[in-house]
């Protein structure tokens, strides 16, 4: 069972900022190149990156450089390239923060062709 609830999926792609901020997990919308369109409050607090400093910048190469590899960004690029992306995996963030174990879900909403990165804490 995914850590991303059906309630959140139902609100895509037009989830309001208020709903995203209230979700209790990290929600990041990115374009096909990885530029952030929406960066929610949970993600901002976990990463210690203010929302205005994140939106408009590339999630994988600038805001979360620890995701800039084949395991994460590579999966995203492959999925966008194939037009289908829905994968979940474990990961560890360590850039300017103490090592933090997380669960990740990368998802491309088929109807709107929007891309989403969901993040939630994970026990070690």
């Amino acid at each position: 069972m995914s850590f991303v609830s059906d309630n959140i999926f139902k609100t895509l792609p037009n989830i309001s900022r208020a709903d995203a901020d209230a979700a209790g997990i990290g929600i990041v919308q990115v374009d096909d190149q990885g530029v952030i369109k929406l960066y929610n409050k949970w993600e901002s607090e976990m990463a210690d990156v203010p929302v205005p400093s994140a939106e408009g910048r590339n999630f994988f190469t600038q805001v979360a450089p620890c995701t800039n590899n084949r395991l994460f960004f590579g999966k995203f690029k492959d999925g966008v390239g194939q037009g289908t992306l829905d994968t979940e995996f474990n990961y560890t963030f360590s850039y300017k923060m103490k090592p933090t174990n997380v669960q990740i879900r990368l998802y491309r909403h088929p109807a709107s062709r929007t891309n989403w990165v969901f993040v939630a804490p994970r026990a070690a």
Partner: protein
Amino acid sequence: MIASAVKLAALVSGPEFAQAVLTHGAAAGVSPEEFPRLTASALRRRGAILDVCNALGAKGDEDDFYRTLAAIWLELRFEWQRHNLVSNYGTVRHGCAAPLSLALAGASSALMAQLESLLDDTALARLGEFAAQLIEGTHGVLSAEATQVSNAAAHAYFPAGS
């Protein structure tokens, strides 16, 4: 000693860096047996930065000192990237990352943060972009094809059994 050298020496000698190393080590689950090696590694890194402050920190060395700081930041950035990659390949492939690898990622990241307070944002952005592009393999001519040629070249220098 020039002001920036004094400031850097104070930063790395202060309690924040040592505390960050211990915090990252504990958070990563470093074993009691590995903790001395983690702290020795961190202390060596700190010593290297203090050597730079002492050797290149005299009046008149400002430009060289600043560039050396930038070079150290880039070196740490590559180091952090490597630990991050190893940790996450461990997580994805084996379900967990080596605690010491995670702790070293945190430690190098903490030291980078201290150096960043002395470097300007434009330089950092360009250096960071270079480091990121290199790992992506998008920098210059690095490509998958190059791997095959490299493999053959390496075989010539490391014949089986050497």
